[in-house]
């Protein structure tokens, strides 16, 4: 049962005469899988994550299907992009996805509790113990009524993880969630994160530049290779998995 099925998806970006191209000849991710995307910064990890999060429009699409629920027919994302149905993509994101950003991405004007509950509120989900339980599991329960500005970077990342999980999405995408942290804290938060995801049966895709601390967590690593083409003016990354 595949949640993602991509074929021949290409994103080209150009800035100051240097082109960057991400090529995905084929990518298949099963429901409930835990995926790691390892590589140095600039290799195209974020671009791939944005493509999978459906917030970045691919330049070329062979096929792009998304099946958030087992048994349901897959959704043709390529078609959504072709007709610029941004609102439909937004609805999908809202219901099916959680996103943990490199740096917080929390709303500075909302308390931790409201930040975590943002997606739940938006979806009109009932108020239950989810927020408390998540905060408890992530060790931020005592901060629930503070503003994010009052928290440390590590605590903010825990809040971001809680927010990504609070509405029980099908998939969580995390872009270097522990990059701003020291290795010990990073390992601890990453462990908590993966543990929670496993408990909740959520598919997860984590990008990281450090293989060592995701190694032990049992994640499947996507392979990619980067090469210079056309005399160095084009950097191309090919991802398969």
């Amino acid at each position, binding site marked *: 049962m595949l949640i993602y099925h991509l074929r021949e998806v290409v994103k080209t970006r150009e800035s100051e005469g240097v082109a960057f191209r991400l090529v995905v000849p084929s990518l298949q991710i099963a429901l409930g899988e835990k995926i790691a995307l390892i590589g140095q910064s600039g290799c195209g990890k974020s671009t791939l994550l944005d493509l999978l999060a459906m*917030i970045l429009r691919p330049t070329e699409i062979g096929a792009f299907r998304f099946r958030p629920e087992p048994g349901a027919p897959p959704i043709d994302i390529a078609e959504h992009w072709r007709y610029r149905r941004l609102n439909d993509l*937004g609805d999908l994101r809202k*219901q099916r996805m959680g996103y943990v950003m490199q740096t917080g991405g929390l*709303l500075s004007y909302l308390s931790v509790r409201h930040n975590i509950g*943002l*997606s739940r509120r938006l979806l009109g989900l009932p108020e239950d113990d989810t927020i408390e339980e998540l905060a408890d599991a992530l060790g931020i329960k005592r901060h629930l009524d503070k503003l994010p500005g009052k928290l440390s970077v590590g605590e903010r990342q825990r809040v971001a993880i809680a927010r990504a999980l609070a509405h029980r999405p099908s998939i969580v995408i995390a872009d270097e969630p522990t990059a701003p942290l020291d290795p010990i804290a990073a390992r601890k938060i990453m462990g908590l994160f993966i543990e929670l995801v496993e408990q909740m049966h959520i598919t997860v895709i984590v990008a990281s530049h450090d293989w060592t601390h995701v190694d032990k967590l049992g994640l499947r690593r996507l392979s990619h290779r980067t090469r210079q083409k056309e005399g160095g003016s084009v950097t191309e990354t090919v991802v398969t998995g």
Partner: protein
Amino acid sequence: MRRLSEVLWLAMRDYRHEWVMSGCFVLALAAVLAPMMVLFGLKVGIVGSMIDRLVGDPRNREIQAVGSGRFGPEWFEDMRARREVAFVVPRTRSIAALMDMQAEKGGRILSVELIPTAPGEPLLGEGMPTPGGLHQVVLSDGAARKLEVAAGERLDGSLARTFQGRSERVHLQLEVVGVARPAVFPRDGAFVPLDLLSALEEFRDGRAVPALGWEGDIGEDPLRTYPGFRLYARTVYDVAPLRDALAAQGVEVRTRAEDIDLVQSMDRNLTAVFWLVAAVGLVGFALSLGASLWANVERKRRELSVLRLVGFRTSEIVWFPVFQAGFTALLGWVTASLIYLGVEGSMNRMFADRLEAGGVVCRLLSEHYAVAAAVTLAAAAMAAALGGWRAARVEPSEGLREV
């Protein structure tokens, strides 16, 4: 609906969280709006007072004859029938319209000017009884003070003539039925029925007045004519046509038509000037508000894109800055109104001693406040919607990694 209220909630949270920035926007808006409100208040107040005074003061509707003529009963009938005429009453010769008066209880003797009156007297206004018969008068304020009488008291009126070689003086008991306000008649005067004035003129001319028991020559002129009239137009705008009609009859008159024209043209000119200034001010105001709101949206692009990532739709994201612009507009309007009210109060106090009672230099009606609020809201919403639409066009990922 639920999502919109969600956006409203978020917009309010953010607005409150960034209260320093919000306060700056509100003050900037009030700084533009308040002077415009003061300017308009001055225009409304000054021109309004001038027009009120013009319309409210019956002397501006008065048409006075220059010199004396011969006006018969038909002429007065004709005038009364005219639509533009509010009040007309004959005047007797001014030499005969003087009478010595003294309070019945004693005191000084005062020579009082008699003014013919009738029901509908424009100078006395509402609530003042019209003197009738041959014994009732309404005194001017000055005369009442000098004679030391009030309404309800009695006076002794006397006048003299030289008849058949000898000097005669007759007395007449008068009742004060009212005392006019000071502004009505500045000299020592008494409003009396035409019949009394006619009787006094008869007496002075040496004729008998049986009704008062005064002797003299018998034989009244059956076709009585009068040398003058007191004439008031119905409104200030009827003065000029009446003047022209009388001029066509060969009656030369004096009016305040020029003053009325002056105020009317001043109203037109001031209104034009105001709209010119207001148009310039409004454009500047809309631009400054638009620029600040646009900048605000640019500044918030990252947070707006987070909302986008969480799943808000373009149409909902647009509302975020629109709501915030609405808060700015409303708070700015309230602040401007408060500033304006303060200025209005102190200005009116400052000029209070130079104004007639009830007159103001600065005034706004409630609909003016409403118009100011509506214009502010519309300008703010338009500027913010543009910015919001711009932010919503950004792909969610673009805003995310911007530092």
